[in-house]
């Protein structure tokens, strides 16, 4: 029986774009395009199995070996720090991890900085590298309202176009790191399915080069 390569794709538009790249790389699975609620799709002939997972969970599936490879945002990789190989920057889903605050805000270094974020680890590492004492307020959504309501001084969050910030009278004060989707691989899978993984990496790399 042919060894199957398990691929975790992030649900949504990004995942669809990524699937197109895999298809072009010689790993098609036509059933994935059917309009249904199935989450797992298999093409035994090509030796590939795709599954849709929540974007923030892709890294967990890959790190724990349920998926051999997957596509995850750099924000998730920095936050969760999974023990995986990061093989390729797919140049998709580009945005920035930023520090934002109300317009007119000034950092008062005599006080502990209150930081509201979904990305506690990234915020912690960033301010630690700057030697700034902070109080992390972990939120799961609507981060932008934290400074407006006085819950925090700043927020650390993903900024794509900046429209939400603008509409809430917030400004970007610093860019921590640029974010994009990355092709990741489980370390053990790479040892035993390395040639399949490498052929995908090579093909997608050349697709990216062609697209430039």
């Amino acid at each position, binding site marked *: 029986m042919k060894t199957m390569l398990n691929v975790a794709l992030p649900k949504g538009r990004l995942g669809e774009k990524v699937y197109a790249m895999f298809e072009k790389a010689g790993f098609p699975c036509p059933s994935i395009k059917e309009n249904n609620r199935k989450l797992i799709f298999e093409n035994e002939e090509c030796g590939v199995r795709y599954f849709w997972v929540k974007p923030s969970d892709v890294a967990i599936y890959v*790190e*724990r*070996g*349920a998926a051999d490879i997957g596509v995850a945002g750099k924000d998730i990789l920095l936050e969760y720090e999974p*023990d*995986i*190989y*990061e*093989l*390729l*920057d797919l140049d998709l889903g580009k945005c920035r991890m930023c520090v934002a605050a109300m317009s007119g805000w000034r950092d008062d270094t005599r006080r502990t900085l209150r930081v509201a974020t979904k990305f506690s680890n990234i915020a912690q590492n960033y301010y630690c590298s700057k030697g700034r004492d902070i109080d992390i307020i972990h939120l799961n959504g609507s981060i932008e309202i934290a400074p407006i309501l006085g819950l925090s001084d700043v927020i650390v969050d993903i900024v794509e176009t900046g429209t939400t910030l603008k509409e809430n009278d917030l400004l970007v004060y610093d860019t921590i790191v640029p974010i994009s989707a990355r092709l990741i691989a*489980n*370390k*053990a*899978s*790479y*040892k*035993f399915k*390395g040639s399949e993984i490498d052929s995908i990496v090579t093909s997608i790399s050349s697709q990216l080069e062609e697209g430039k």
Partner: protein
Amino acid sequence: MHTTVGSAERVALSLRALYNQYGYSQYKMSKFEEYDLYARNKDFLISDGVITFTDLSGKLMALKPDVTLSIVKNSKDCAGVRKLYYNENVYRVTKGAHGYREIMQVGLEAIGDVDAYTICEVLLLAAKSLRAISDAAVLDISHLGLLSELMAFIGVPDDKEAQLVKFISEKNAHEMTDLCRGCGISEENISLLRSLFAMNGAPKCVLPELKALLSGKVSDAALAQFEAVICALEGSGVEDLLRIDFSVVDDMHYYNGFVFKGFINGLPGSLLSGGQYDNLMDKMKRSDRAIGFAVYTDLLERLEQPADPYDVDTVLLYDAGCSLSDIRRQAQSLTAQGISVLVQQTRPENIRFRQLLKLSGNEVKLLENNA
């Protein structure tokens, strides 16, 4: 029902036999170390957390999160090489777990005048340890000495070394390239690093390429030692497991020289990890050198065979009026046939059995057959 010794126990037994064969003696750790030992070498430990308690004299002690530190601490500088192995439980916080776990770990250490042969022997035993567990195994070998000499040659600033090493460990060529460009490293040297990244395979294929790539950029002695040790493993019967892969890195404050990681098909992460840790010896003001590895046998439960569909072959029920010797005799006659038997008065709940027997007087009746 076939009961088998669990993978971890079976592997531990075969590894002990293997290490004994090569003259390693068992290190038994029956006392507790002071917390200070682990606090001073926090980065050497896999997990951050250490379980502490205060002993009768008021000292802060710890349940061991690691065995290597104790072996180093308790072995004294002396001539020759002390070869030890251990099979101990350690107490760690594993990633993602919200608490401590007791983990069985098997490993070995060679401490003293560690020469090229000792390194070769430890690599051989690491590969043989993997083979004892599975044929589908890989031992990735790298050399931090070569890597750090190469980083010095291409001029990686000290404050960027850790970040670069992280990218190397992730095979993250794109960010490594950005980092190097940001440090003003030439495109030629970036491509040198990228070539090193891409090298990954059996020593026979990779060594000539590696020599050509690193020649003149790292010391001849380091390159020659690396080659000599790897080549000496040719014909050892485990050479098919060996891969050279420079993405295997470890904390350079503790490790130097050879570092390696073992993988088994079917397990998501590395099962075996080890290397030369002369820098730890230096930190502990020791003049002797050291190399060792650990096998995380707790991970083997992921490799366990599919569970038996039955918990027990036979459930034997008996009446209150049955004589004790009849019950004992019936149970014994079943076990003598190699049949496992659970004896009790009432039908058990949540137990899967092949057959249900009932002993009334001295007569046995079959009540149920699920086989």
